[in-house]
Structure formats: structure tokens, C-alpha cells
């Protein structure tokens, strides 16, 4: 039996973000939202371990109160229950705030053996919330994990980490936290039945008031500038004539010889 918490973030779909070339401002009017890409792997891994060893999976997220849609999406992927830790002010949180908020909520109401986070969020990609949360909870952690197995004693987890200098296999006593790489698994696509069933699953609504404290950021944002690129953006068809034109251009640019 394993009680697992999978942490996921509800993020702007970066493919929808448009840029005002002149002011280099980000235009966010018509953006959609999604579960942060690699958090789908975190949820999948939690569900996979639960299927194998029994137990419970809770999907936990910190976000603005308007992010309700995320719950159905997350729950359709297999967890039994969700912790929706929300407040209107929980927008553009810094990773350190998110970690502190998750830590308070988890300490207050969850009994867990394992916490699974994604490698990094699609919007900030800070790779910070997981390890910072582990510190705040005082539990061991392993980042960049691409394979997880429960030890025979069921009191330890074996994690295979993929790092710059090679592979490292570690064992940690439970409770522990891991952050998982996207190649740890292939997330299932929820079936229609799972999507419909998700609406009936319980959600614990945890508010700032329940948390009983405030969370100030240590980092202040002083500016955001869209990255722009000067490119020709010439599009051609696939026939020989066009290929020759492009080769000619590349020769002229002096990038091939």
C-alpha cells in the first residue's frame, strides 16, 4: 500500500502566447491552459505505482481559484482525489512560494509515502518546487528520475537518476520525494468514461484561510520581454526548382560550401 501525492501545475499553453513585435510584450488574451507537460508523467507514475502496489493517489495543485478546470483533467488521469489549494492571489507564484504553500497543506492534512513532481514546469522550468518542498517537509529527495521501483521491504524506494555525468541509482526510506523525467513513462490518454468519472471524484478545497499564513515572494519581477528573432520566413514548395533556389541562397549566404 502506497499513499502517493502527485503535484501538478496548471499552466498557460505557451504555444498560444502571441508576441507584439514592437513592444515585445506578451499577448495573453487568448491563451488556453493545460496540465504542465511533464506533470502528466508525474501523475501517470503515481497511478502506475498505485496499480502495482495498492494504495491511494492524490493530485495536488496550487493555483488561482479560477483554475477549477484543472481538477477534472487531472482526476481523469487516475488519481482518486484532488487537493485544490487555491486563492485568487495564487497567480504567478514564485517556486519558493509554491513549495511553501504545498508544504503547509501537505503537513496539515495528508499522510503520504511518496510525493512525485515533474522535472520542471512548462512555464517557469525552475526545477525548484520539488526539491524545495522536500526540504520544507524534511524528507529525502531524488531529482531527474527515470525509473522508480518499490523495494521488497516496501519501506524504501529505488530511484534511477539520469544526470549529466551518468546514471545513479539511489535508495531512499519512505516518505520521500522524487521529480520524474518525461521518459519515465508514457501517460495514458483518458477514456471518455474516465473523463466523465472525474467529475464525481472528491476534491478538497484548501484556501489561504485554511493555510493560516501568508506567503511573500523573495523574487520581484522588474520586467518581461518577449524573445524575438529576425528571420526571413520564406516558404517554398517541395519540387526540384525550389530546392535549387534554396541551395543557391545558402551558397550566397556563405553557410555551405
Amino acid at each position, binding site marked *: 500500500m502506497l499513499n502517493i501525492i502527485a503535484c501538478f501545475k496548471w499552466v498557460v499553453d505557451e504555444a498560444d502566447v502571441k508576441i507584439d513585435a514592437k513592444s515585445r510584450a506578451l499577448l495573453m488574451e487568448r491563451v488556453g491552459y493545460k496540465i504542465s507537460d511533464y506533470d502528466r508523467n508525474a501523475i501517470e507514475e503515481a497511478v502506475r505505482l498505485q496499480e502495482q502496489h495498492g494504495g491511494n493517489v492524490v493530485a495536488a495543485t496550487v493555483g488561482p481559484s479560477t483554475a477549477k478546470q484543472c481538477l477534472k483533467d487531472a482526476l481523469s488521469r487516475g488519481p482518486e482525489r484532488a487537493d485544490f489549494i487555491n486563492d485568487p492571489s495564487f497567480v504567478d507564484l514564485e517556486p519558493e512560494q509554491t513549495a511553501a504553500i504545498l508544504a503547509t497543506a501537505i503537513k496539515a492534512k495528508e499522510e503520504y509515502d511518496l510525493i512525485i513532481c515533474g522535472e520542471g514546469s512548462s512555464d517557469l522550468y525552475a526545477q525548484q518546487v520539488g526539491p524545495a518542498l522536500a*526540504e520544507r517537509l524534511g524528507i529525502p529527495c531524488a*531529482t531527474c528520475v527515470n525509473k522508480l521501483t518499490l523495494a521488497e521491504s516496501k519501506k524504501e524506494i529505488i530511484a534511477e537518476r539520469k544526470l549529466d555525468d551518468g546514471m545513479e541509482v539511489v535508495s531512499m526510506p519512505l516518505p520521500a520525494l522524487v521529480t520524474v523525467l518525461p521518459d519515465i513513462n508514457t501517460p495514458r490518454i483518458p477514456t471518455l468514461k474516465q473523463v466523465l468519472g472525474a467529475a464525481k471524484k472528491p476534491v478538497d478545497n484548501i484556501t489561504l484561510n485554511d493555510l493560516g499564513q501568508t506567503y511573500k515572494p523573495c523574487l520581484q519581477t522588474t520586467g518581461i520581454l518577449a524573445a524575438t528573432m529576425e528571420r526571413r520566413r520564406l*516558404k517554398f514548395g517541395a519540387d526540384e526548382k525550389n530546392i535549387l533556389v534554396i541551395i543557391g541562397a545558402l551558397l550566397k549566404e556563405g553557410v*555551405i560550401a
Partner: protein
Amino acid sequence: MAGIWIFAENREQTLELLNAGRNLAQDFKAKVVTFALNVHLAEEYINHGSDEVLLLPLLGQDQSLESYVPVIAEVARQEDPDVFFIGGTQRGREIAARVAARLNTGLCGGCTGYKVDQKNKLLLMNRMILGGAAVQTVVCTTRPQMAVIPPRTFEQAPLMEGRQGKVIELPAAQPSAVKVINRTPKVQESVDLTEAKIIVSVGRGMEKKEDLSLALELAGVLGGEVGCSRPVAEELHWLPEERYMGISGKKVKPDLYIGLGVSGQIQHITGIRDSKIIFGINRDENAPIFEAADYGIVGDLYEVVPKLIKELKVLLKK
């Protein structure tokens, strides 16, 4: 012992951060303090500009670098550095996040550069957001101001003449509950994409591993190297991890980048932004690669690439 503090897991990155640290030390009128894994490195760091070195204790066989976190956080708590830079390897990122959490301070992860506000002794630090679609500038209002700095952001600090510095030995680390049970070092890749003049990049539009031969042949004709998108390396395992480009992979700056079946999502583009010319081949005319490219061919790579190779062979006389 306030000052500019530096920790990186290897010598190269420590020297890079030392270079930045030396400059900051002047702005902040502070000293540079560097962590070292052994006496030999300690001496070297002093010779390259560190004023003081904190010598980390030896680790047990079953301990990983991350078990230094309590030692690093404790000495930082006592000595109150102004700035703390950590080298952005994967281990470095974990260590930075955990040390920052222990010190209750802010951390700019993936800091790609900064400006100094000399009057207030603050760093205006840049980081990429939304997969690299924008750069955000942040200021850390607590101490120390922490940043994770990716490898090769700065040149290595040069050797300086007649340097002297103090080496302070840190106490032994409490063994961590995380025990290493096996290590498999990585075989070093012979190809360094960051140095390549021409890169042929393979995306998921390629149907099977055998078809890599098409990319290899094209690269061969052009005298370039083959790289890829993250899923090609990490999900399909067709090419080593060192070959993928993007926000979490290599940042490259070739004269020519050719994408074959690469969609051109922002996380990938972020790694190839500094290419002189970008050329994309994709059968979907709405693929984002065409927005990022100088030249694009809308077509099936299996038709276009053989033709391209044929014409190049003729024109380049190869």
C-alpha cells in the same frame, strides 16, 4: 564572511563562475568565496581569483554530491553571503533549490545573465520563461541573492599572478538518507554540437531509426553534424542526450541549422535561436518551425531530403 559565493560540481564551471564572481566582487566591494571538493582544486581556485575557499569534507562511498546540502546551507547561514551562484548541472539545480529553501531566500533558476544595480547592491537577473518565449528579469529581495547559472554562460577566470587565499575546512556531512547503490558513468560523446558549423536536426517527423541514415547522409555531404529534438533523444533513444537542442538541451550557434520533421515548438527553438540561418523541412505548412526559419520547404522529408542530397552532391561536387 559575506561576499560572492560560488559552488559548482566541477572545475570548469567553478572557473566560469569565478570569472563572474571576480567582477561582482569589485561592484560589491566584497570577497569571492568558492567551495572546493579537494585541496588541489582549492589551490587552483585561489590562483584563479578566489579570496577564500571552503573545503568540503570527503563523502562516504554511498553518498552523492547532494548530501552536501546541509553543510553548505549551514555555513551560508552563519556567514551570510551577499550573492550565491551555483553551477547549473542537474545536481547543481537540486542543491541550489534545497539550499535556497533552507535559507528562506529567492533563487533565480536558469539565470542567463544579469545587470548590477551598484547603488543597492542588487542583481537584476534574467531567466527564460514559457519555454524561452520571453525573458523575465527578477530581483531577489532577501539574502543571499541566489542564482543557478548554466554551464558556459561565462568564460573561465584566467590564472592570476601571486594570489594568496585562505582555505577553511568544513565539518563532515551527516550521511544522507539517500544512498547511492549504483553508478554508471556516461561515455563521453565525441561530438560537440555547440562547435558545429552545420547541424542537421532530426525531429519526430522521422518515422524510424533506420531513416537516420538520411540525416547522416545530408550532414555528410555538408560536412555537418546530426542533432535532434528532445523526444528523439529521450523518448525514442535514437541519438544520445548530448545531441538534443533546446531549453533543456544544447544551445547551439551554427551557421546553418536544418530541421527535418521538427515541429519547431518554442522549447526547441530556444536552443537554436543563435543559428545564422535556419532551414526547416516539414510537411505541415502551419508548423511553427516556419515562423522561426529563414527558408522553409513544405513537404515530405522522405521526398525532399533525397532530392536535396542529390542536388548538393552535384553543386558541391561531392
